[in-house]
């Protein structure tokens, strides 16, 4: 039980660190694409670790209490939430980046746009 608690604490600290770094980058970067880079990747990674800490904690209580524990539902549904988060964040970030480029948003201080005129489906 002690080792599981230590690993849970480590996962929570990693998750909170990456969430804070992602939100910090949302305010520090100059344009849409770098903000998307910082915010999406860091908050996805941090949220994965926070949900994995919840899964580990509830699964350890489940393993301790037996098959018909109330924590079993929490553990399995947290796994489903993790899968949903993994699928939707990557796809949503791709859609945002494509929409921003096609609506004429330029990167800050950019000289050459390599995708100029190449985005006609």
């Amino acid at each position, binding site marked *: 039980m002690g080792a599981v608690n230590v690993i849970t604490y480590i996962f929570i600290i990693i998750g909170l660190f990456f969430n804070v770094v992602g939100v910090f980058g949302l305010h520090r970067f100059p344009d849409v694409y770098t903000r998307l880079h910082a915010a999406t990747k860091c908050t996805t990674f941090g949220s994965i670790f926070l949900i994995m800490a919840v899964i580990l904690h509830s699964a350890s209580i489940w393993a301790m209490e037996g098959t018909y524990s109330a924590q079993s539902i929490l553990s399995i549904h947290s796994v489903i939430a993790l899968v*949903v988060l993994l699928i939707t964040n990557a796809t949503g970030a791709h859609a945002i980046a494509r929409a921003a480029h096609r*609506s004429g948003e330029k990167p800050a201080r950019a000289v050459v746009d390599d995708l100029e005129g190449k985005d006609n489906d």
Partner: protein
Amino acid sequence: MIWLPAAIVVTICIIIAIVRVFIGPGAPTRLVAFDTVNTLVVAIMVILAILFEQVVFVDVAIVYGVLSFIMTLYVARFIEGKKF
């Protein structure tokens, strides 16, 4: 456990991201900030589920994640300027 301080830190992150939703120049920046808020809300709902021992919060988090994904796709199509 550490769940209550973790929930407080994620709440502060959500508030800072909402500030970027209000001051951000242009629609794509606001959409990026709002997507960040959605991800953090899913994370905090799972944390609150284990803090209050309510399994329903995780189900709410799953449905919120799927619906916010659809919202992101629709607003992205709107920014892109295409017909649906």
